């Protein structure tokens, strides 16, 4: 049940009305109903793993309480370890098991030993990457004394199964979400209307930009062997825009739906297209994941390696990004993607430009020439690596790269598609970029509360709705739902 479906619309309207009109008496009833709604939502996607998410919630709920209680340091460490094994073990099994077996077999076949281990037909439980990370951060934060465990199981179970963010994030921390679950939510008119704007903008990015880009990227990536290099560059560009608008659009919708129910969920994208270097890019891209990795992977690593100076920092960055890559899926392409992202940081670390005061894009209308060059450069670097995201094997990605580096780079791009689709897609990409540039210091692209003329606001909404209805691309499943 993706957000941009009639089914979800029907589900959410019913849920919204019941939540605010009937199950609104007190905090307990609100939470119970919210939890019920989350499980209904989960079952609608796939009921098979409901027991898994409930079991995992129960284990982590109890561990949280016991970790907090145990005075004995050893016992405490043991309980934390148990939680990590449970969470990461589940991820490893469901997400990475077959990958490891395959890698194992091919490693042995290199030295002429043929193993016959069967891989299992494992289906990835929906949202497991997201809810596992919530649970792990909860336990680690209790262990480090940042938070106290909740003793209300409904609250904890709702935190884990928080349905607007269950399938594709943002990955909220207990510290920000649990206190919100502990208080009775009150309907706020201006929050709700702004939430609607955010949903509308997210929907536009998802169904107009991302889905139309998908048509273009598919046409290019499926025929990359026969197309001129300039088209392949366009393919990488379209795909970079596609994953950005797909994922940030979906995050906008998730945040909007949460806000409609009275929750404030963490921001997931902060207009990364306008990042001026790679470090800034990763502070603006999939923020809830990168900040999670920073807190629980990068910081401990860089602490351990801190005596080795710059090489220690580089090593921590590389490990951190390889793991970020691997989080996206069990394939060598994702590992290489992460590794390359980490490598992009090396010049920054070596030059010491990493920490230099960043030139803030001012509030002026246009970026300066230097700013523009830095943004374009950063985007190009990212664009080149997302080819790995779209390829099935590293070999395929490399033959794509090889095809880009050829003389036909200078010839006119040729994309085997209807002219109208190409033009419409490019026009809307440009419109999205301009709007997001103008709105770059706002919470989301359509935060237009400052426009006081309500007629103008209304015409903007109708225009976007009309654009969505008229130009919505082919239905493409949401890329991130399988992660």
């Amino acid at each position, binding site marked *: 049940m993706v957000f941009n479906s009639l089914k979800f619309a029907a589900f959410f309207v019913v849920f919204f009305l019941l939540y605010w009109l009937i199950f609104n008496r007190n905090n307990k009833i609100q939470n119970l109903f919210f939890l019920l709604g989350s499980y209904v939502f989960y079952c609608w996607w796939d009921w098979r793993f409901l027991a898994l998410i409930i079991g995992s919630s129960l284990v982590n709920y109890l561990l949280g309480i016991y970790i907090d209680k145990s005075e004995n340091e050893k016992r405490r460490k043991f309980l934390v370890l148990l939680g990590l094994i449970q969470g990461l073990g589940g991820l490893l099994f469901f997400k990475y098991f077959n990958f490891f077996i395959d890698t194992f077999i091919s490693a042995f076949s290199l030295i002429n030993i043929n193993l016959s281990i069967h891989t299992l037909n494992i289906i990835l439980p929906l949202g497991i990457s997201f809810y596992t990370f919530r649970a792990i951060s909860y336990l680690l934060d209790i262990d480090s*004394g*940042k938070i106290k465990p909740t003793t209300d199981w409904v609250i904890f179970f709702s935190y884990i199964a928080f349905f607007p963010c269950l399938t594709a994030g943002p990955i909220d921390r207990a510290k920000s979400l649990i206190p919100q679950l502990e208080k009775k939510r009150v309907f706020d008119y201006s929050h709700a209307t702004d939430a609607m704007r955010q949903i509308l903008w997210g929907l536009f990015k998802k169904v107009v930009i991302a889905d139309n880009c998908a048509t273009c990227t598919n046409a290019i990536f499926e025929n990359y062997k026969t197309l001129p290099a300039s088209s392949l560059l366009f393919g990488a560009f379209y795909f970079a825009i596609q994953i950005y608008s797909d994922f940030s659009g979906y995050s906008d919708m998730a945040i909007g739906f949460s806000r409609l129910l009275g929750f404030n969920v963490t921001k997931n994208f902060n207009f990364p297209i306008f990042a001026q270097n790679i470090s800034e890019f990763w502070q603006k891209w999939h923020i809830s994941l990168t900040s999670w990795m*920073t807190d629980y992977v990068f*910081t*401990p690593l860089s602490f351990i390696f801190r005596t080795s100076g710059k090489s220690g*920092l580089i090593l921590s960055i590389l490990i951190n990004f390889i793991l970020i890559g691997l989080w996206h899926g069990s394939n060598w392409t994702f590992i290489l993607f992460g590794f390359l992202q980490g490598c992009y940081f090396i010049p920054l670390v070596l030059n010491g430009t990493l920490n*230099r*005061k960043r030139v803030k894009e001012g509030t002026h209308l246009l970026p300066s020439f230097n700013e523009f060059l830095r943004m374009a450069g950063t985007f190009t670097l990212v664009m080149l690596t997302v080819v790995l995201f779209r390829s099935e094997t590293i070999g395929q990605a490399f033959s794509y790269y090889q095809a880009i580096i050829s003389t036909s780079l200078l010839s006119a791009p040729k994309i085997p598609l209807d002219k109208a689709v190409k033009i419409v897609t490019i026009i809307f990409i440009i419109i999205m970029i301009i709007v997001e540039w103008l709105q770059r210091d706002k919470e989301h692209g359509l935060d237009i509360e400052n426009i006081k003329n309500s007629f103008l606001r209304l015409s903007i909404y109708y225009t976007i709705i009309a654009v969505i209805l008229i130009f919505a691309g082919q239905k493409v499943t949401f890329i991130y739902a399988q992660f």
Partner: protein
Amino acid sequence: MERNEIKKEVKIIFVSVLKNNNFEISDELTANDVDGWDSLSHMVIVTEVEKHFDIKFKLKDLNKLNNIGNLIDLVALKTEQKLILPDGL
């Protein structure tokens, strides 16, 4: 060591790592208020502070830091401990 003295020296370390002088050091100052103080430069600062005061932090101590005030308190605590328990004891 005097708390104010620590504050001054910490400020010098910040400026030399961040190459940035446009912030006033105060107890409430957090990473959000200072340009360039992010997760990457944070550990460089920590290492420099350790070197400068000849102390060793624990990861757990660092996790609890919320602002510069906390950091200065931690440095003060560690330098005191060092006086009471000199190396080798």
